[in-house]
């Protein structure tokens, strides 16, 4: 009896149970693009990701963001120790496998990837009221701003670039487009950002870029386009217009004291800055330990070249910029060129403090310092806009207006320098502005290097280099003979290798 029933039952059971499990996937704890971008707060989360991608260590959170700019005269590094990556570029001998340089590539691209996600989707957010539409527009505007800003840094650093403006199509390798094409996209993005964004943000949103920030970057874009490699002089006028608009808005001013710019966050001079929070695992490592000399126990990542320091004008700003009395752990306070110091170089003072959380020191001794600070990194500060206006308006008109003199003199007066004497030709005036930029922005993210690039100053910089500047580590002789190719960095090996059909920049 058992026999009769059990067999069919068993077989039925065997087949029947199959329905117990399902093969369709249901990722309950994971968001997917299919079910996202319904509300403004979902969109906010996507916008936030673009900012964090740019601010982190491995992007623009550490000194590695300037690795390929070490060919500049405001940057050099320790001759031994673990600074090989910066040392390579300092000697104009950068390589494609340089690990630190990857921050310059990865950070902006990661940001562009997230910004593209916002740009592709922000209009999907349901918005019926004007206020809701405006919120949505602001989100899109910030994404356009970041995308334009990132392409601007990438094109100046690496030259020709792939142009990716939408979702990634992993089956296709995009070609590298010439800089002119990239600049078209940058201008379009920044113009859109300027249209879509409010002038300036305040309160909890103070770190978001406004329309004025977009125009300040655009001014710099036009100024750059007037120089190498595009050499389009017509852009001077456009640069002057954008800078003037930012100045006339009256929302920004210079800090009274130069050093306060590097000790406070989101001050009146800050047009756009990246925000940091150590407790939130978002430390800024571009201030504090990174610039403190080995002799004081610091990381000794970067400091100025000797002649760059010696050529600095005598003024309060110079005193505030440089750290020349080394508080050695072993031999007490000595001058920077004391042979007993590790590098016999001056250091940067202005980056020591962070937002008050960088260093604790007495006149004779370093008590403690942090590698991680909450200091904002100013990407654009108002001094830059003033100097852009001064240079661009003079070059556009081929004569120097009073406004142009005043823009330059505002920066000089704050530095503790006398007003510049009027009567200069446009070119001579431009050179004064460039010299002002050289020290106003000493050691700041890419500023000096990009001036060297757009004005093709490498031969002059090389010629002025002190022959005793780490004489066992001479400049790359091939680059000294032909500096041209060194204005742009090599494409990082990883992505070059992943992009069939691309060719490396010359000499790398």
């Amino acid at each position, binding site marked *: 009896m*058992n*026999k009769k029933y*059990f067999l069919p039952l*068993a077989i039925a059971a*065997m087949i029947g*149970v199959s329905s*117990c*499990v399902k*093969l*369709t*996937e*249901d*990722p309950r*704890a*994971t*968001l997917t*693009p299919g079910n996202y971008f319904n509300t403004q*707060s979902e969109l*906010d*989360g*996507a916008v*936030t*990701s673009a900012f*964090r991608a740019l*601010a982190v260590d491995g992007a623009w959170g550490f000194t590695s963001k300037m690795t390929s700019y070490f060919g500049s005269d405001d940057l050099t590094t320790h001759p*031994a120790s*673990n600074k*090989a990556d910066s040392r390579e570029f300092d000697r104009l001998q950068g390589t494609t*496998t340089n*690990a630190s340089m990857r921050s310059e590539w990865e950070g902006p*691209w*990661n940001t562009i*990837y997230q910004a593209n*996600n916002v740009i592709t989707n922000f209009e999907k957010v349901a918005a019926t009221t004007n206020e809701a539409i405006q919120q949505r527009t602001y989100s899109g505007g910030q994404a356009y701003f970041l995308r334009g800003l990132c392409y601007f840094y990438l094109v100046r650093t690496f030259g020709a670039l*792939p142009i*990716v403006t939408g979702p990634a199509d*992993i089956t296709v390798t995009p070609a590298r487009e010439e800089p002119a094409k990239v600049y078209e996209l940058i201008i379009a993005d920044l113009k859109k950002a300027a249209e879509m964004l409010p002038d300036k*943000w305040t309160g909890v*949103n*103070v*770190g978001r870029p406004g329309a004025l920030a977009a125009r300040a970057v655009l001014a710099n874009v036009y100024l750059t386009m007037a120089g190498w490699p595009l050499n389009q002089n017509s852009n001077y006028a456009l640069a002057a217009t954008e800078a003037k608009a930012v100045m006339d808005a009256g929302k920004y001013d210079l800090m009274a004291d130069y050093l306060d710019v590097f000790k406070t*966050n*989101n001050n009146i001079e800050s047009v756009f800055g990246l*925000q940091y*929070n*150590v407790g*939130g695992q978002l*430390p800024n*490592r571009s201030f504090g330990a990174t610039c403190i000399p080995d002799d004081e126990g610091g990381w000794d990542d970067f400091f100025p070249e000797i002649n760059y320091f010696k050529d600095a004008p005598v003024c309060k700003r110079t005193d505030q910029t440089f750290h020349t009395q080394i508080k050695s752990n072993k031999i007490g306070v000595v001058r920077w060129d004391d042979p007993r*110091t*590790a590098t016999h170089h001056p250091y940067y003072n202005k980056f020591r403090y962070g937002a008050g959380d960088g260093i604790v020191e007495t006149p004779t001794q370093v008590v403690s310092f*942090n590698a991680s600070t*909450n200091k904002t990194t100013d990407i654009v500060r108002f001094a830059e806009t003033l100097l852009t206006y001064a240079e661009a308006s003079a070059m556009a008109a081929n004569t120097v207006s009073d406004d142009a003199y005043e823009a330059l003199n505002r920066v000089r007066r704050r530095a503790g320098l006398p007003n510049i004497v009027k009567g200069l030709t446009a070119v001579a005036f431009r050179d004064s502005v460039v010299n002002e930029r050289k020290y106003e922005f000493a050691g700041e993210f890419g500023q000096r290097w990009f001036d060297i690039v757009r004005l093709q100053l490498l031969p002059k910089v090389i010629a002025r280099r002190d022959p005793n500047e780490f*004489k*066992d580590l001479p400049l790359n002789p091939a680059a000294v003979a032909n500096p041209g190719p060194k204005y742009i960095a090599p494409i990082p*090996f*990883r*992505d070059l290798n*992943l*992009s069939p059909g691309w060719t490396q920049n010359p000499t790398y």
Partner: protein
Amino acid sequence: MKRLLLLMLLASGLLQAYAQKQLTKGKVLDETGQPLPGATVRVKGTNISSPTNAQGEFQIATGETASPVLVISYIGYLTQEVAVTGSDLSITLKTDARSLNDIVVVGYGTQKKSDVTGATSSVKAVEIAKRPLVRVEQALQGTTSGVTVQSNSGQPGRGISVRIRGASSITGGNDPLYVIDGYIGGNLESIAPSDIESMEILKDASATAIYGSRGSNGVVMVTTKTGKSGKPRVDASAWISKASLPKKLNLMNAYEFAQQVNKKGDVAGTGHPFTDAQLAELQKNPGGTDWQDELTRKPLTQNYQIGVSGGSENVKYYFSYNHLDQPGLLINSGYKRNTLRANVDIKLNRKMDLKVNITGLLPESHNTDFSGDIVDPFSQSSMWDPTSPVRNAAGDYISQSNFASLAKNPVQNIMSRSVDGKTSNLTATGVFTYRIIDHLTFTSNNSYELQHQQTQSVFPPGTNEAFNGNDYAKMENNRYRSWQNSNFLTYNNRFGDHSLTVTALVEQASKTNTSTIAQANQLSTYSLGYWNLGLGKTQSTSSGYWADALISYMGRVNYAFKDKYLLTVSVRTDGSSHLVEKYSTFPAVALGWAVDKEGFMAGSKVVTGLKIRASYGQTGNQAVPAYSTIAQIGTALPYYFDGSTSSVNTPLGTPVSTMLQWEKNTTYDVGLDMEFWRGRLTFTADAYNKKVSDLLYATDNPFYYGGGSFQRNIGSVRNTGLEFSVGGMPVVGKDFKWTSNFNISFNRNEVLDLGGQDNIIVNGIGSAQQGVSIIKVGEPLGTFYGYKYLGTWKSEEKTEAALYGKKPGDTKYADLDGDHKLSGGDLTTIGNGMPKYYFGFINDFSYKNWSLNVMFQGTHGNQMYSFTQAYTMGGLGDARDATNAQLLDMWTPEKQTDVPTYGNQNEIKSSRYVYDASYIKLKNISLTYTIPESLLGRIHARSLDVYISAQNIWTITNYPGYDPEVTNATNAITQGLETGTIPNPKTYTIGLRLGL
């Protein structure tokens, strides 16, 4: 109803017995005179048979046969025929040295070993008992051909990587599939080695294809012990073992180190960091801090096991409890484990059996989470400044030193941190068997596993993790649930010369995992460790969920003609939730020819067994995790638009491929099993060709497309190999016996295709800044990639060196592209981590009550890239001060060695750090004394063995690191890389085994 039926049957049986009342009584004993319960006694030429009882006794009606002959058989013993000469017989069975008659587990059933057509090997309880093992995988090392076992960390409680016939996947695990009492993918940690009855290793695809999409890396089937009917037996064992570092690296003492730092300062022009006065001081007391000694210790491991087994004819039981306490080789680390097992076999009635196995596992680990990284305390113990004390005069740790390593003081690091894992795992397997009609059996095998895992960790300031103000405490909770239901019908019959077994299976399985993580950063005080996350300046929480499912169908036919010509055919179809194309089919076919059963072999006294096998099969590798084909929006740490107010961050994940398929593994195998002189010598050989196509690989995604990586099917890899295993009993005397087993396996691996690409360069491991691995068409997996180091430029090469901007004493690398500089074109393959062959050699000698087991194990032809060596020699350039004593032999014009001087690019990606890692190790040596029976009576014991043994005490190798056996072998690509992995300790053990 059933009971009635049973009674009737019983009654009819009795009646029959009564009718043929000619009874023969007797007793069956083994060679030592112990009774053998459960042996089968059959009257030759009839169906009349009877089992022996617990005392080995039997009673059988011999019927009307004139001169009856009894056939006595028992697994593991030679079958004997005895003519009935009296009514009280005493029969002694001889142990069968021939293994070919064993019954082996083949997955969804068992088979006589002589009928097996696939390439399989087994490890029995006897072999396992010879060594003090803490992990099941260790039992596979050296004991079987085709299997390599490598521990990727000497930390207690950590898994061990097992490779069957080389590595075939570059993404997924290469670990074999573990099937524990029918439960696929069971938790190996839940098995105490002493609970194992046998392990079968299925090597070729014809044997593993029945596991379809999960069989690609081979299958290890673990069968746990069951009770035997009879009086309760108590088996207890205990061992204590003392471990120590197998060797120390040759590092500089403090005085030598300080001199070298100054020498480097001379070259860099940065002056003398150590003053003459300091040097003079150091010269008086040159030792300094020995960080290797500071960080390690010689811990005592203890293992206790007690098992109780026995039962009646209808219920058999096996209970066991195991306790392991294994402190780590590193200070402040360790592992403890409690395992409880209950295996019960119930004969429900004549037709139905029920088997229930339940295991409870409670492991606890403390600071055993190091994955082998260059900043781990262990790596740092060879890279830290020997002139720095561990603590300053005030008793506080010296966190950082101005010299050598940039990482934190390794002693402070490990003493300050805690990563405490506590797991509760319950696995239950129930097997119901129903013999529906003659020859047809239904089996339902059901397993359920529930695991809760809690990990609490704290990284206060002073630990590496706390770098950047990132000090934190964290609590993770994980609940994992898995179940499997396998139902199968087995039809087994014989028609004259044809014997046939057909198996049909439906199986389903599903897994679910939920997790929560709570983390607090920058705690105001660390006095409470990880116990109060409310003390954090910032808190973050996250949670996760994943689930997957598998539905499978399998059919298998085993057919034999005259027991000589054997055929196995199987097909499995798996449907998986992970992929877009849900279903895949995996076929296999195998042939065997038992040549020894042919007439022409019948009389041979020499060759007593000969079988030839050939097979083909396909399996898969389900290497893709759940949700791999779904684009995701993740959650990440917030951004602060004013520097303090946090905003939710939901980044778009990296792109995904929507075309994913399983890796397919196609294997051809031919094999030969031979036996000489009735088992005095056995020989097995196999040759195979295993091709893996549609290789899954997490391809790097360019940063302009979002970076990271995505899964793709990109190419194929082939493993070809030969395996030999020779076993024998060279001496079988009355008092002295010697048995020996030698196995050796040759494997060649080659990447055939990478989807059009010539190579893929692999990223570095952990915080090692540079990767040295490449996957390249035509080369094996595990290939190293970098510059070829040619030593130093010698004085007579001055002119040539100048062309490279170098001077004598500088590093010299092969300039492959002839451009007189070190560039991408000079990068080439510089070594390989895959052994050409590996072997195990086990010898057992016994003399009276003494036995000696000696086991050697080794590999040949593999190389190791050692990051530890590279970093102790100065790392990137001369970024860190070298600690390695090799630097003392630096190039000078007078003594032109190949150790370069300071101040020239010392490339980390170079063959300078590639070493021959071939080795022969005395894996185990143990001496056991079995207390004679005459003495046992006094203590009322059944048996008592005492032994002393030693593991890993002697190694022949050229490798300069700690242990050539230990690498970061987490996958096939990085095998042969060593980045500070903790070596296998050298251990001395004393133990006893007691039977009551």
